[in-house]
């Protein structure tokens, strides 16, 4: 079953937004694009019960947007509160100013900061480094697919990607659909005799565990 991971893109400049959308579509993401904070908050709300972005890229300064009811800080606070397992990158021309950094980190304490002056390519490379994780014999490729390295088989579900990029943290899933996808991923790991196994901690909480190579698989 395929379910490409969503990426939330919040950028007030239409050309930059279009470039970012293209960059992420080429990497097999499903972009949720917004030119202002109000639209971004609607996208988060509308996707809350179906799918949730694995990644959000948020421009701190949204002054070019037409709707100023909400700002990027509101989007970050909402992500921190309701989509806590979404990796968040905030980029700004003023990322060096400690007041800006403090405001960002108070809105979303886990947000990664990126200097907008380094350009879009640098941002996309940063995203790739953040998402292209390796856990045991698994690798996330292009942030969108989990590959079992020994067999080269691919698993294409966003919830599998979410688990791998968050390893060793515990991830909470928020719908039956998501937990079913996670269990299917666990079965896929078992079928492939992966050294990584899915650990259920109850209440829709899961994490991945890497078995030592010299330990036998649990029955």
């Amino acid at each position, binding site marked *: 079953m395929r379910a490409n991971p969503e990426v939330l893109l919040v950028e007030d400049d239409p050309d930059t937004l279009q470039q970012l959308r293209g960059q992420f579509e080429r990497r097999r993401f499903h972009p949720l694009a917004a030119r202002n*904070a*109000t639209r971004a*908050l*609607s996208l*988060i*709300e509308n996707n809350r019960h179906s799918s949730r972005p694995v990644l959000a890229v948020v421009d701190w300064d949204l002054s070019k947007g037409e709707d100023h009811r*909400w700002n990027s*800080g*509101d*989007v*970050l*606070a*909402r*992500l*921190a*509160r309701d989509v*806590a397992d979404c990796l968040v990158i905030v980029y700004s021309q003023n990322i060096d100013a*400690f*007041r800006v*950094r*403090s405001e960002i*980190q*108070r*809105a*979303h*304490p*886990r947000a990664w900061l990126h200097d907008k002056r380094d350009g879009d390519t640098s941002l996309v490379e940063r995203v790739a480094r953040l998402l292209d994780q390796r856990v045991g014999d698994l690798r996330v490729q292009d942030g969108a697919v989990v590959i079992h390295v020994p067999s080269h088989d691919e698993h294409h579900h966003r919830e599998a990607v979410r688990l791998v990029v968050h390893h*060793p*943290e*515990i991830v909470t899933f928020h719908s039956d659909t998501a937990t079913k996808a996670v269990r299917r991923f666990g079965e896929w790991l078992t079928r492939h005799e992966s050294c990584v196994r899915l650990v259920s901690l109850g209440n829709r909480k899961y994490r991945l565990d890497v078995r030592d190579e010299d330990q036998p698989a649990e029955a």
Partner: protein
Amino acid sequence: MSPVGAEGGLGVFVRDWTRSVVVLSEDGEIAVALRDCVDTGRAVVRDVRPAEFADVLAACRPWPWMVVGGGGDVPPALIAAAAARPFLVFWYGTMPAGLPAHARPAARFSDLAGMVNSALQRSVGGMSLSPGMGVDMPHGRRVRSAALEALIAAHPDGFDLPLQTFRSATRVLHLAGVPFRPRRDRAAGGVVLRPMAPAQEGDHR
């Protein structure tokens, strides 16, 4: 449904169980600087103002792992919390009155950053802090006990708190079969983590 953004408050007040370093300052400068040198996979830095301490205390479950402050004022809620719960207290500059005896000062920012990172990376008897939350035990098991996390991070120093504050640490150490227990040690200034004497093995009071 209309989009809802700000009314739930800043992300720094979101309740969760991740290990938290609460940084109190009037302008956020210490928190911003610490965030740059702390492994954020091991702990989340919460940048708050002194007047917000009670709110952030409620957000950190079960309680903050560490509170870092600076300046001359200590929120009354911090004094009360530090007298009841085991968490590390580091203070940048001269320590004001009211902080617990186990609070530690740092004269320079580099000292403070070093103290925070050392606490995050400390290992005692094969136990160390897991990324995010919990403790990695010697045989690969992972357990949850905020009191044990505090004892490991403070080692070899201790906490000026009653021994019964560390019951959860005693319980998980016993269940995991690790021969260490919280013990009151006058020389260390409070309750510390100590190896058990052979005759004490099986003791889980």
